[in-house]
């Protein structure tokens, strides 16, 4: 029985995918917790589509190089984040409709740019492939996580204050925009870092679903952050096994597992609630 769990990870590419996903599980979900608390879940959609044109340009310039595609993705993601921030400061329409407009354009542009090139599999870019997690992809993921975790720790308090009470931060002379943009930059980095294994469309899933599910396991911010990391790690292991045995791409498999964990938490917490009402 146990060998069903261990056997797949005897393979090199599965081990690399596992390490990459576990590393991402340490950094991405805590950022997701803040996205959820700041009611910016839509922003994660915008960024996941926003990085796509940049990845396509990177691929056009340097082929399937992880670094070129990654740099392109980060540049495009940051541009989209700035654009969204500019749109949010009142340009005449509702913010959510404008964000939807941005990501639709970005997705279409990204798909068009990738389709125009030969030898690049769109499915791999959108949904990921564990086979593509080579050493340089692992270094990229590890580098991003190594940067993102201390950065999040550094901006922890101002980010909480900016999420909790932006009016108070402004009134006490704090500049909220700095923390907001630093935070978004970290989100972009993590989305891009995840795309090799999970695909651009699924990379945000490892960030958001454990974060959404975490609130069923803890009532405090610290507790939710820890729960989100744990949920993401479980989803990574189970999802990769699922992918191995069923031939589903790794991205959707991990995201489906994270989704199932969320539903499980939802079920348990609503049962507990009913129990306590009775």
């Amino acid at each position: 029985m146990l060998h069903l769990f261990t056997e797949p990870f005897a393979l090199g590419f599965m081990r690399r995918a596992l390490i990459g996903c576990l590393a991402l599980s340490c950094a991405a979900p805590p950022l997701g917790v803040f996205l959820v608390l700041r009611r910016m879940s839509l922003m994660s959609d915008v960024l996941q589509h926003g990085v796509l044109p940049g990845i396509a340009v990177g691929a056009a310039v340097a082929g399937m190089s992880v670094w070129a595609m990654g740099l392109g993705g980060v540049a495009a993601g940051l541009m989209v984040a700035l654009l969204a921030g500019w749109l949010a400061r009142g340009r005449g329409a509702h913010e959510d409709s404008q964000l939807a407009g941005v990501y639709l354009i970005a997705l279409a542009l990204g798909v068009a740019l990738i389709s125009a090139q030969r030898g690049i599999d769109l499915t791999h870019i959108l949904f990921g492939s564990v086979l593509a997690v080579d050493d340089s992809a692992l270094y990229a993921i590890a580098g991003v996580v190594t940067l993102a975790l201390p950065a999040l720790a550094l901006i922890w308090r101002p980010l909480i204050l900016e999420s909790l009470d932006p009016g108070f931060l402004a009134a006490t002379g704090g500049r909220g925009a700095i923390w907001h943009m630093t935070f978004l930059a970290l989100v972009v980095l993590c989305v891009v870092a995840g795309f090799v294994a999970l695909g651009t469309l699924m990379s945000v899933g490892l960030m958001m679903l454990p974060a959404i599910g975490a609130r069923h396991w803890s009532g405090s911010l610290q507790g939710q952050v820890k729960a989100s990391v744990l949920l993401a790690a479980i989803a990574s292991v189970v999802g990769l096994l699922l992918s191995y045995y069923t031939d589903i791409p790794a991205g959707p498999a991990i995201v489906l597992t994270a989704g199932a964990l969320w539903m499980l938490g939802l079920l348990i917490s609503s049962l507990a609630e009913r129990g306590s009402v009775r």
Partner: protein
Amino acid sequence: MNPPAIRFDGVTLRHGPREVIRDLTGTFAPGSLIALTGENGAGKTTLLRALAGLHPLTAGAIDRGGLAPSDIALLPQGSQLDRSFPIACRDVVALGLAGRVGPFRGIGRAQLQQADTALEAVGLPALGRRAIGALSAGQFQRVLFARLMLQDAPVLLLDEPFAAVDTATAHDLLRILHRWHAEHRTIVTVLHDLDMARDHFPDSLHLSGGNAVWGKTAAWTPRAAA
């Protein structure tokens, strides 16, 4: 506390396209306790925001006597604070120190102790670990007062602080206000209850249709001040 006088010199403020305050000139004396009154839309909130450096002046100048706008504590009406955020009361109160501590220096055990003491002073002992989402409107306003205590600002601006609280809470919060007054802080409070203004606030500034009337609430006719 020895706050400087705050002088308005020909201050004009717009709210959107509308000019709400025109050519306001006058002084908040150091350590005065001022009731800011006037009908809805008279520019009371806009004036407080301008004082706190959060609203641009259309014309004129505000002389804060060397205070930075961020040295002036503002308690907005219907605070923007997100009450569904998973955070404990004492942490919210301790964040009152954030302006002085800065983004990176630590808020440690001593500061959290300070937060607990402030919570005790506003009548919420032992609620330090309670999540803010679990508080009543009155308890929440008390928490915001505790946060003001930690801000320790020489000038305080309160926008309708008693609007959403019951009589007992208003009574307790007024006592805190008087303690701040005894410490010679300058306090400007937006009020609609004119009896309360006359009973507790010696000075007043009444805004109406772009004009301002400075005065002593003691000069108001009892029960007919409006």
